[in-house]
């Protein structure tokens, strides 16, 4: 290697491979990051991006391959070694400690014995200089997701790294918070630092990144300049085939349609010290429409879903009404019997029992509502009927699996989610409530799920979708409400809702003062 390339290239990865059991999570991956560039790492869930960066940060040991840092071959044995080289990382699933303060969290990743008070002062000064204000003594458990990410970034910057790895940093931010992050990143680039930016949001990659590496099924499929590509061409590289756009037929006469799901003045006290109280939430979902609920994670969406689905019962029966009947004091099964269906956020353990077969999971959630079909005399389980229904759902939703009736945990996240959604759709529910329908699901499966939700609504059901993915909500919703701090905004019809308006509401702007621009935030 010539001295020239070493002077320009900060990091060179050649043939890096990682094998888990029989799966090649990373297969001979090449990656070159130059000094002072923002380099995008693109790929769908399960493409091997996280595995690759974990090897770069020393949390995983490569099976084979070479890593060169400033032209020198290096072995990164653990995260401390990575930090010593000058590699910093902002994790996707935050590596923070909820019971500790921001300053204590930062101190844990610094090796020296600097007193906490000094670290707190340094962190605060640095956070203000980058426009990411932070109270170092606040408890992480009390902070919003955006604030937690600031801690991660400040913690990373305090180590003065040359390469900063950001794993899906904007997936939890409001559009305005994301803009702020981009400013910070551009400033870091101007200071000569390199950034490895992992994302599946193509627009922001096109807007900001100087180079891109695209991965699929553990292999690098392309090195390209994202500014020369279109979002569609990048998507094709990631997915390997065309992604069908979701079609949303217009609805008419929705004003006069019957409200199938009504939430009236729903309030809820926090169930745990770190959970969000719900404040006087009212919402109607009418036959034929899809209502989306946007919001930054942790603003009460989970608590709201529990209250609507019956995981948490209400004190007054009238706060949740399904098809005109009071359901606030009914259990989940009681609400299902009224024609409602629910899909929780957490697939394994909540939406499905991981160690049970798909058919058993189907039976568990539907034995009460479909007792005639699935139960014979004396409560004997009709296995053939359940098996037929399972195969019908698998076919309808294109669930890919290795056996005829595997355990739920054996499916990939996207395929299990297709099955869970299909299990509920198969009942033709009149009210469908879904929390994060496509979280961690690949683009092809996500399009399938979204299309089926729209079709369910258009066939006369009421559909309520809670999601952190704004693109998704804009794709499928007829109106969008925003949940912030346990309060729900009035639904904005799709035609009026802009990314900016929704973003302001997510950041906590008053519902009535949507138009005053960014200064008021």
């Amino acid at each position: 290697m010539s001295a020239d390339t070493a002077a320009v290239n900060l990091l060179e990865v050649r043939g890096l491979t990682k094998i888990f059991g029989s799966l090649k999570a990373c297969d001979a991956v090449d990656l070159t990051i130059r000094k002072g560039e923002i380099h995008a790492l693109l790929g769908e869930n399960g493409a091997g991006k996280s595995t690759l960066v974990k090897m770069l940060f020393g949390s995983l040991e490569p099976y084979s391959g070479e890593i060169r840092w400033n032209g020198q071959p290096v072995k990164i044995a653990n995260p401390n070694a990575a930090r010593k080289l000058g590699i910093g990382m902002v994790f996707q699933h935050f590596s923070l400690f909820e019971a500790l303060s921001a300053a204590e969290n930062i101190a844990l990743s610094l090796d020296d014995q600097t007193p906490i008070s000094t670290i707190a002062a340094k962190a605060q000064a640095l956070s203000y200089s980058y426009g990411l204000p932070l109270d170092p003594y606040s408890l992480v458990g009390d902070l919003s997701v955006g604030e937690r990410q600031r801690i991660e970034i400040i913690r990373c910057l305090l180590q003065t790294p040359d390469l900063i790895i950001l794993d899906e940093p904007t997936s939890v931010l409001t559009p305005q918070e994301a803009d702020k992050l981009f400013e910070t990143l551009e400033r870091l680039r101007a200071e000569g630092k390199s950034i490895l930016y992992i994302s599946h949001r193509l627009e922001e990659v096109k807007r900001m990144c100087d180079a891109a590496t695209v991965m699929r099924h553990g292999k690098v499929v392309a090195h390209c300049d994202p500014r020369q590509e279109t979002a569609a061409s990048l998507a094709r590289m990631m997915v390997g085939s065309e992604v069908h756009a979701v079609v949303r037929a217009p609805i008419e006469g929705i004003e006069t349609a019957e409200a199938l799901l009504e939430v009236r003045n729903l309030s809820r006290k926090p169930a745990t010290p770190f959970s969000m109280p719900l404040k006087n939430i009212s919402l109607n979902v009418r036959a034929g429409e899809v209502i989306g609920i946007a919001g930054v994670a942790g603003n009460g969406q989970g608590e709201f879903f529990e209250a609507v689905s019956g995981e948490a019962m209400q004190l007054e029966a009238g706060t949740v009404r399904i098809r005109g009947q009071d359901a606030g004091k009914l259990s989940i099964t009681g609400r299902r019997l009224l024609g409602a269906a629910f899909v929780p956020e957490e697939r394994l353990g909540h939406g499905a029992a991981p160690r049970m077969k798909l058919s058993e999971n189907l039976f568990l959630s539907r034995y009460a509502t479909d007792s005639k079909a699935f139960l014979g005399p004396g409560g004997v389980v009709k296995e053939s009927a359940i098996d037929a229904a399972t195969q019908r759902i698998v076919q309808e939703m294109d669930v890919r699996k290795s056996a005829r009736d595997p355990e739920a945990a054996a499916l990939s996240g996207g395929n299990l989610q297709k099955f869970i959604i299909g299990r509920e759709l198969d009942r033709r529910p009149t009210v469908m409530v879904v929390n994060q329908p496509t979280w961690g699901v690949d683009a092809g499966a996500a399009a399938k799920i979204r299309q089926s939700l729209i079709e369910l609504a258009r066939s006369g059901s009421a559909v309520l979708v809670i999601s952190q993915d704004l693109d998704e909500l804009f794709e499928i919703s007829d109106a969008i409400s925003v949940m912030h701090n346990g309060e729900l905004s009035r639904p904005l019809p799709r035609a009026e809702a802009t990314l900016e308006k929704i973003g302001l509401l997510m950041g906590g702007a008053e519902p009535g003062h949507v138009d005053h621009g960014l200064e008021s935030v």
Partner: protein
Amino acid sequence: MIEQILITIATAATPLLIAAIGELVVERSGVLNLGVEGMMIMGAVTGFGVALTTGSPWLGVFAAILVGALFSLLFGFLTLTLVTNQVATGLALTLLGLGLSGMIGEAFVGQPGVKLAAIYIPGLTDIPFVGRLLFGQDPLFYVSILLTVGVAWFLFRTRAGLTLRSVGDNHGSAHALGINVIGIRYLAVMFGGACAGLAGAFLSLVYTTQWIENMSAGRGWIALALVVFASWRPLRVLAGAYLFGAVSIGQLHAQALGIGIPSQLLSALPYLATILVLVLISRNRRLTMINTPASLGRPFVPDR
């Protein structure tokens, strides 16, 4: 008379305090070791035996600490390296300790033991009323107080203590930061074992200077309960241990006076009173939540 009662209370509270402080450190690192009773009784029999054969109570104390730590190392190897179930392994450790100590101690039954002498500082110890209370108790009493203050300082004022708490709060995040989760847990488990061994030595070298089978009499379990009800705060463990000691001694005096309350009910009083008081001071759910090690009892297997 009052001074005498106070000293008796301290004697009842000290073994609970030492064992509970050790277990507190273990649990703060995210490991639940239910083997306290077993490690304690092993400490008791070792301390007694070594003191008896060598004639030196101090050698007995050190031997008890060592055996407690080694015994807990067995627990650490099983639960941390082989990732066995912590609850089942801890229970097995208790059963093993009780059985093994009975076997080792068979020769010591009925033998007069060696007492770890109380401190005597001329002048200070002779001060009327408070002299013996403050300057004339056995050395392990002072060790227990220093241990409590030291552990509180270590956990909340030092970087190493912060690291230990972080491992107990979220071992996945700690591992991602490059903290050696398993190594820290080994050290914490061994500290807990050493403390339990020391508490056992107190029983057989100070509390009663003889070896009796099963002489720990459930104190290891009380220590475990104290840690939980004190919401993992060292100074609350101190308060709980002394409250328990006070009510135990109080009810003995009440029984001696022949108050018309069934003795079984009086015997249960220390347990009831301690749990009640600690539950009341832990009423703040937010504080309890912050202090509860979130990874407690959860097995950790790093992926490499």
